[in-house]
């Protein structure tokens, strides 16, 4: 249907804003308010306000239509790649932003090896279920999981189509635990391990109540907000229900996995607590155990008990025990700044 006919049918009379006396063009504001014609100086008021949707559509096209070698389209949205922040054989991880003026800072995982697609798909499915968890505390804890923005085959900077997952960039969570370990190669102060341990246990407690096991509580998957002493858990590619088999392991972190899991054992909530304790022991020990950085005995014994798999408490109860042990070692809780720069 021609637009003129459509305009007639909808009884909208579109017209150019011109001065009725001299025919000179009027500014768009003339549709809103009385204006003075620049040429004949007449005061002009337009009678009825008409809006043309084609103008809106053109504006939208200009707004969302960014192009360039650094633009990737995923799930009908375009993102501008800013910096590659991690890389591996199977996926690249980029910091990016939505390519519109009202932007959103995101992290994009772009898969390079199609064989890993099931892992990325599993991550999306688990996060979707967790977002709708009926476990107590979901409003609070779900905010500390990766926030999904988009998922689909994206055209990357090289032009090749690759499965990509887009997440919100968690503001303030500037380092992974690996990154913190690089800042403190000789080991992280045990007082910091206390809050990192407790935050991780609280989050795992909710995750377990929601019916899932993370299965990869590794240093790269713990994001640290040093200023607020907050922690987020990422890397849900291997997460699953208790009883399921682990889909993949990280070979370089093999020592952090419970032996039973490597022998083909099933996922259980116990697995997450053991991996967390081993990860923290490694972060505390640093490159070499230092006499000057000795972990206080109560806390050290607790960590070693959990790392060995001898612990029997669930995440919430263990968090309470950590709290009590920390009080014995360091006195009442107080804020100790963790400096990362």
């Amino acid at each position: 249907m021609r637009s003129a006919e459509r305009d007639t049918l909808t009884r909208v009379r579109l017209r150019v804003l011109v001065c009725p006396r001299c025919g000179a063009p009027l500014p768009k504001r003339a549709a809103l308010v009385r204006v003075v014609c620049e040429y004949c100086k007449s005061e002009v008021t337009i009678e009825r306000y008409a809006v043309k949707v084609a103008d809106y559509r053109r504006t939208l096209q200009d707004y969302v239509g960014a192009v360039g070698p650094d633009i990737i389209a995923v799930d009908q949205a375009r993102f501008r790649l800013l910096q590659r922040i991690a890389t591996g054989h199977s996926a690249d991880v980029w910091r990016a932003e939505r390519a519109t003026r009202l932007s959103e800072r995101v992290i994009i995982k772009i898969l390079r090896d199609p064989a890993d697609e099931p892992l990325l798909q599993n991550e999306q499915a688990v996060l979707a279920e967790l977002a709708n968890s009926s476990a107590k505390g979901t409003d609070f804890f779900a905010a500390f999981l990766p926030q999904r923005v988009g998922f689909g085959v994206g055209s990357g900077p090289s032009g090749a189509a690759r499965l990509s997952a887009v997440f919100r960039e968690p503001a303030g969570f500037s380092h992974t635990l690996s990154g913190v370990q690089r800042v403190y190669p000789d080991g992280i102060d045990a007082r910091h391990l206390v809050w990192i341990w407790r935050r991780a246990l609280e989050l795992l407690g909710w995750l377990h109540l929601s019916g899932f096991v993370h299965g990869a509580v590794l240093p790269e998957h713990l994001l640290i907000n040093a200023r607020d002493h907050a922690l987020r858990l990422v890397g849900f590619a291997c997460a699953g229900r208790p009883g399921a088999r682990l889909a993949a392991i990280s070979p370089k972190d093999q020592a952090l996995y419970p032996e039973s899991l490597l022998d083909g054992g099933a996922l259980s909530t116990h697995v997450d607590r053991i991996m967390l304790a081993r990860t923290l022991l490694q972060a505390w020990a640093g490159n070499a155990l230092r006499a000057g950085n000795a972990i206080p005995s109560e806390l050290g014994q607790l960590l070693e008990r959990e790392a060995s798999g001898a612990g029997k408490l669930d995440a919430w109860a263990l968090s309470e025990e950590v709290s009590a042990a920390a009080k014995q070692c360091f006195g009442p809780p107080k804020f100790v700044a963790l400096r990362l720069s």
Partner: protein
Amino acid sequence: MGHGYYSHEAHEAMLKDRHDVPAERLFKQVGCHALMNPKGVRARESRDSPDHPNSLPIVFALDVTGSMGTIPKQLAQSELPNFMKVLTDSGVQDPQLLFMAVGDATCDDASLQVGQFESTAALMDQWLTWSYLEGGGGGQNKESYELALYFLNEHTDTDAWNKRQKRGYIIMTGDELPYPAVSRHQVEALIGDAVDEDIPTEAVVAALQEKYEPFFLIPDLARRERCERRWRDLLGDHVICLESPADTCWAAAGLIALTENAFADLPAFAERLVELGVERKRVAALTRALMPYAASLGKAGVAATAAEPHDGAKPSFWKRLLG
């Protein structure tokens, strides 16, 4: 509109006896106030004047459906002077406030109500309390936010934009989704414009952001799941997830003050809140809520996500065990 001086003391005095006044006595309207009816309105104007040579238009578009009615009451009972105090003390010049009330155009009697841009405490308070808190809304998890955005795009005229190409601010509160498009039938019925087709909400936002910085404030974490993603697709980091509706005014002031460079960064704004006597717990919650937006301005006061070292020949992260 927009003449007269703002006096914080006068505003505080006006509200000092209101803490215990029931909301029904403050908001007496039982229908849309005739002067807030958008039908036939050509333009709401924010103008410069000798008193206010750098007028800054600020729109509070408040969801007045049943689940969101507390925010207008808090503003009228105590919070609005706090908002103005942060802005004026931090050097944000000549703010002019317009209050809008937003409901659901498919089922409410007064789904869009629009005041005028004002600079004085008395007139701000007048338009706010003339709002009809209908408390309606349907059960379909949508309200007519897009209609309010359309109105602001088509029917406001600001000297800030016309003379200085300076964007105004829209602080919209809500806990539901916008409809996917602005209905031309609703526009014709409620505002009186002739529109040739429905306008996609994305297109309205694309046009609106040329003249305004729009923000959408979700009042608490429990309600973010049902609407946050859609709003972020529209507004990105301009969506703010509060932890309590009581933080609305402080958050709005922070958003504007940070964008206007009135504070060096978010920690500086947080310090100011502490000086003003805001509880530390609330300051912490506000800092968390504003952090993503502050980070998008480079004013979070913390570093961005650090890059992992790239060794080029790193082996595959995952060793597949199954399938």
